[in-house]
């Protein structure tokens, strides 16, 4: 005689959220004359990497201005008001580095 497998119900223990998809901001047509924000998360060499990147973007791609922000710690979230300020001041943001 076939044995029916015993079925147990369990209460889903994990996240069931389905994130609302967000749309990426349109990519820029050119970096010429733009302002670039660089977010240094305070990991060692993030500043060196970003400084060089900013220099190259200005030298070779016509970036007009580079704005740098250094986080107090890589392990702390960006304060919302700082992010809002950078977003209003800059055309794009580059965040580095893990790890």
């Amino acid at each position, binding site marked *: 005689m076939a044995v029916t497998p015993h079925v*147990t*119900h369990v*209460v889903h223990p994990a*996240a069931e959220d389905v994130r609302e998809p967000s749309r990426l901001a349109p*990519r820029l*047509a050119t970096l010429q004359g733009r302002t670039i924000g660089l977010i240094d998360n305070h990991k060692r060499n993030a500043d060196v990497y970003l400084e060089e990147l900013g220099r190259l973007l200005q030298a070779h791609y016509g970036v007009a201005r580079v704005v740098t922000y250094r986080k107090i710690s890589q392990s702390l979230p960006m304060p919302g008001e700082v992010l809002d300020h950078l977003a209003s001041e800059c055309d794009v943001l580059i965040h*580095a580095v*893990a790890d």
Partner: protein
Amino acid sequence: MITHAFTHAAQQRAQALGLPAHPVVVVEHPLASKTRDQAQHLARHSLEAVVHGLVAHREAPGRVSQVRPQPRPARASHLAVSGTISDINDYLYDQGWTDGLPVIPPTPDLVSAMLEASPLPAEQVLGTLPPRDGTVTVEKVASNAVMAGCQPASFPVVLAAVKAVLQPQFNAGAITTTTGGAAPVVIVSGPIVQQLGIHSGTAVLGSGHRPNATIGRALRLTMRNLGGATADTMEKSTHGWPGKYTMCFAENAARNPWEPLHVELGFAPEVSIVVVVAARGLITIVESSQEAGLGNLETLVSAMRGEGISGYYYQARGASPVVVLGPEHAAEIAAAGMGRQAVKEYIFQHARMPVGQLRDRGHWGARSWPEAWEHQPDDFLVPLVTNPDTLLVVVAGGDGRHSSWFPAWSATQWAMEVIEAPPERGPRAGARP
């Protein structure tokens, strides 16, 4: 910009934010140990990829993720699983929902029994846990508490601990994703310790005590399953430590020579609280030669110094190391006329490292401390914490000449919550209303 060791974590986080196509530039790992020239070379090497991410249209106009948003149901769904309890355990493990140890399947009846001991309704939202940003409901916590083996009587403590880690200054998302291997340490103080039998004596930080083992485990399973940081996703601990399974203990009220911890922290004697800190591990010292209280403290503090202790580089956030004095050491320290505050002052004054010894070691490149220290001579003594009240001193454990300390994970601050009483019941405690 990330290094290749973080590729998967970055993709997962982008997914959690609803931006799976977010541009990411990957460079060779690890950047942190490269020379200046090498780091600049990597910048040059990644320049084109960075520009491509900024100016190339990665998505056709109007195209977004295919995932359709759905309202989150107020109650958890039920899953049907076939087979024996062993098969159910295999299923839960395969989903990534356990810590590797067997669990009790969270069946609806067991979860209901847990919820009957809850001071809060099942559907109440306590917050969201990063990095996956899962919504934490009381019912979800109850499901994880069942899996952890909790008895319903312990559930109010679990809820208080979960509410504590959801406080913003605790920084739960970074704690579960750091390479530093942080785990929550739950300290319980107040009358509930005796009521529930939360252990505070012999082998207090070891195994064998159900409330301790299951309360800490329920918190960790909740963080794992609602926060979503697992080793194949966003958990990046280089090592981690066994506190990631569970770590919960109580102050030894009978052998604490001072006023209770929760009273010292400003609560009434009849109130019970949890204090949750994030720790990188546990270090136990022996001092069985000194008889005076000060000798015990000298030996303890000598084990709190070292170039590899991250707290010396990271005072900015005010993270709290926890010192657990064994009752014999505590009694001798008290007999020497020192109160808990004097112990904190002593540790504050003596747990220090010369800045010259810290330079170019440990987390020097990412140090986060008062600006004035940048200009100090090499013999300037950097304190482990900037304020003695940042330290937590607890008396716990059994007989023996040992004390311990938990080095803090640095980008956190402790969180406290009052343990709310379970709902009133009739004469038959725990019966359905």
